[in-house]
């Protein structure tokens, strides 16, 4: 009942002012748009989690005594930071996706190992992960050496020092930079559009192609992404507050 009233009002709005918000009064468009929004959130959340894991593991591997491991991590970081993310996505999806062998699905069809959504997750996570490695490294460098030495004196192993002492401290130091990069990652999910992942931008384009309401959808898109970024920043700030140790870091112990 309420939905109908709202839909009628927006239909009226269209007839009187020309502001055509099909995503509100048209059930099909609304469904499309919401699923696109869901895909964007799904991509963002999964990529954020994987990229943080990559960052943490990569920063640990950068402190490895083995030169080969250090060189490999450095190479990974440098390559992914200095090449366009869109070309990375194309390289993975078109380049590697074509070379990798195909598997048979339940119906006996030969399908690629990874779908376009999965390739988008892989390449976006690697892209953001490369930045996260650098961010975690700067956080690790800011932890005083004496802390590491104290932990070693208490008998922690190298992994133990990292997991229980260094990483928790480094994470708190680098949260602002991490925050920045994760916002960037959220914005970069739009590039999945290029390999036809049905995320917000992709479905919006379908909607404005069908309904000829480009300017309206454009404004909606910009507002939606601003809101999404706002929510992410809000969550990160809450997390930052929750993690703060009294007396450690800038003005956090209040």
């Amino acid at each position, binding site marked *: 009942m309420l939905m109908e009233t709202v839909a009628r009002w927006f239909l009226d709005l269209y007839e009187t002012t020309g502001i055509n918000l099909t995503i509100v009064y048209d059930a099909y468009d609304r469904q499309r748009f919401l699923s696109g929004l869901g895909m964007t959130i799904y991509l963002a959340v999964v990529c954020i989690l994987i990229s943080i894991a990559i960052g943490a593991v990569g920063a640990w591997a950068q402190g490895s005594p083995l030169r080969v491991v250090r060189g490999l991590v450095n190479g990974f970081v440098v390559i992914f930071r200095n090449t366009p993310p*869109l070309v990375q996505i194309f390289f993975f999806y*078109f380049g590697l996706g074509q070379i990798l062998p195909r598997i048979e699905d339940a119906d006996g069809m030969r399908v690629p190992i990874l779908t376009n959504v999965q390739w988008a997750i892989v390449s976006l996570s690697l892209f953001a992960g490369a930045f996260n490695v650098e961010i975690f490294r700067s956080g690790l460098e800011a932890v005083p050496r004496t802390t590491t030495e104290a932990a070693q004196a208490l008998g922690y192993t190298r992994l133990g020092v990292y997991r229980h002492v260094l990483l928790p401290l480094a994470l708190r130091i680098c949260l602002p930079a991490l925050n920045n990069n994760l*916002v960037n990652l959220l*914005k970069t999910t739009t590039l999945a559009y290029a390999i036809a992942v049905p995320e917000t931008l992709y479905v919006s384009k379908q909607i404005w192609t069908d309904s000829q309401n*480009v300017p309206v959808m454009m404004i909606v*898109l910009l507002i939606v992404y601003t809101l999404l970024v706002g929510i992410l920043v809000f969550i990160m700030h809450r997390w930052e507050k929750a993690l703060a140790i009294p007396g450690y870091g800038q003005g956090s112990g209040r």
Partner: protein
Amino acid sequence: MSAPPPRRLEPSEAGAPLAVLLPFRPPPPAAFAWPRLRLVHLVGIAGLVLVVGGAAHAQASGARLSALEVIWRWLPLLMWGFGFNILMSVLSMALGTAAGLGLGLLQIGENRLLRRVAWAATQFFRNSPWLVLLFFAMFMIPFQFTVFGHTMPLPDWVKAVIGFSLPVMANMSEIVRGAVASLPSGQWEAAESLAFSRRQTMWRIILPQCVKRMLPPWMNLYSLITMATVQASIVGVSEMLTLTSQVHAAEGGRPDLLAPLYGFAMLCFFLYCYPIERFTLYLERRFQLNQ
């Protein structure tokens, strides 16, 4: 009261003056180290493996051209596309820097209303995805406009340049605001006591000092915008990525060619952006020493 007896000097320091008595010499700034070849080698090897791997794959399946030969044959076209990317990045950077400087100065200006508006615009454009802003520019800017009776067409790539300059503008605005805020307020007070007007203070005292602080993040931004220009291929501007897929189609659309071709595009951008990143790091380190 008699002075306490002088501390006995250690034998090692008996001859030399105490370190604190020596005149202070700042450590010399480290010279700019050209990128060491190790990492570049790694990329080169990775690229070679891809290209050679593609070549081996191709040769195994008949008398078709290897990936390396294909890239070599189309090199002029691909390089032309890459040059177009660079051109777009330079133009949008120039446009965005000029607009961002204005917006940044409004953000720290004296008019409250303008300050609010400039802040809102900066946040809005900074938090929107670049691709959405690109779409925004492509669809919202007319394909031609009329000035004094002359109709001027606006080609797609010009609209793309404007689209890229929007996020540059917003980020530049934040860079300007941050740099001005990072100067000690004594600079403002000293200028005021010397009877400089606000405008004079800004242009003759504050901004010249800010240039040094703004340069590293500005170069970072340039590197980002260069890498973003490939997104123009999504909205139909014929740049390197578009040409790459056209080359792929012209060679018969062989799937094994895609990885080497896109790998080559990555290599081009890497060779352009990596030195910029190193130089930025060097500048950051150098300016930190002098502060």
